């Protein structure tokens, strides 16, 4: 074993001293573990190449890459659309309402995208107002009827002459008046 290492170091010295001799070429050296330092490809030439030991940046970089991708996936089309709308269509101008003209509910807004949203998705505020008034009216009628019912119950219970608060009594044809039918019984 010691003889092998001696042989190896002798072959390395021979290779280093005369690299161009055919017996000393890298392929037919005794072992392949001898570093041929003068034959290493040095790319930039200056500065010692360091292997910096640091924790893996793979997961962080992957997260940021994916975040950027998914944000820009819808972000860029939205930005292009908004830019085109602002450049080609532009905001509205304030004018006096012409006589006898009732503007639609979206014609009270300035920006074209707001106008489109209120036109396509939202109900007009007049409709919402009327819906709320209708709901209030129905609740008011229900409340009034409930109060009236309480009043009616009170009266019928007190006076007893209405259709409510009847108590079942015995049929008067079943009463036997025979023991009281004449004054001398």
């Amino acid at each position: 074993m010691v003889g092998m290492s001696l042989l190896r170091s002798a072959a390395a010295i021979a290779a280093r001293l005369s690299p161009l001799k055919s017996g000393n070429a890298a392929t037919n050296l005794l072992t392949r573990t001898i570093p041929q330092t003068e034959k290493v490809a040095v790319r930039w030439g200056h500065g010692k190449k360091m292997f910096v030991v640091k924790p893996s940046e793979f997961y962080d970089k992957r997260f940021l890459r994916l975040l950027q991708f998914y944000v820009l996936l819808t972000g860029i089309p939205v930005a292009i659309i908004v830019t085109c709308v602002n450049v080609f269509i532009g905001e509205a101008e304030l004018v006096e309402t012409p006589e006898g003209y009732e503007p639609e509910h979206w014609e009270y807004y300035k920006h074209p995208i707001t106008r489109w949203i209120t036109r396509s998705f939202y109900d007009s505020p007049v409709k919402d107002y009327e819906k709320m008034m209708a709901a209030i009216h129905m609740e008011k009628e229900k409340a009034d009827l409930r109060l009236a019912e309480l009043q009616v119950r009170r009266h019928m219970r007190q006076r007893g002459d209405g259709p409510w608060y009847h108590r079942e009594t015995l049929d008067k044809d079943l009463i036997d008046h025979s023991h009281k039918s004449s004054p001398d019984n």
Partner: protein
Amino acid sequence: MPSDFEKDAYPEPPRQTPVVDKQTSLPNPALILSKLFYYSVDLPVTTFRDAIDGVRAKNKLVYYHQKFRRVPDLTDCQEGDYLCYYEAEMQWRRDYKVDQEIVKVIQERLGACQQREGPSYQQNCSKEIQQFNEVTKNFQSRYGDLGAYASGRKCLMKQKERMMAAQTQNA
């Protein structure tokens, strides 16, 4: 600023261009710099703006100012007439918003005045200051501590308290 602002409320400051009294034959660096600024910044920006306006002129949109009809107030409603209550409440809310905007406009006028006059604003824009104080005092007394759940009823009750306090003070 939009082009339809009130010219009296925001007066232009007097121009301070000095009389040209050139005593040297050297070129004026201020003139050179202003020309440079004009050709490098002002002219491209103006041409860009005109180009965009030219494109926009084809699809011109207009918008209108919504005017609401006046409806009976909370004090003119019968008791139990919830529809009347609702309309009065909506009207009160619109008026509250309008009053907030009025206060903002007065505030902006005061700020513009201060900016215009510089260090001597306290004596030069006394009118704006007095107007601002009056408007904010009135706003505070009417809508002051009503809070986030303010309503027409609460404002009316606050007005009643104010009238009662005034009566006890007078009597």
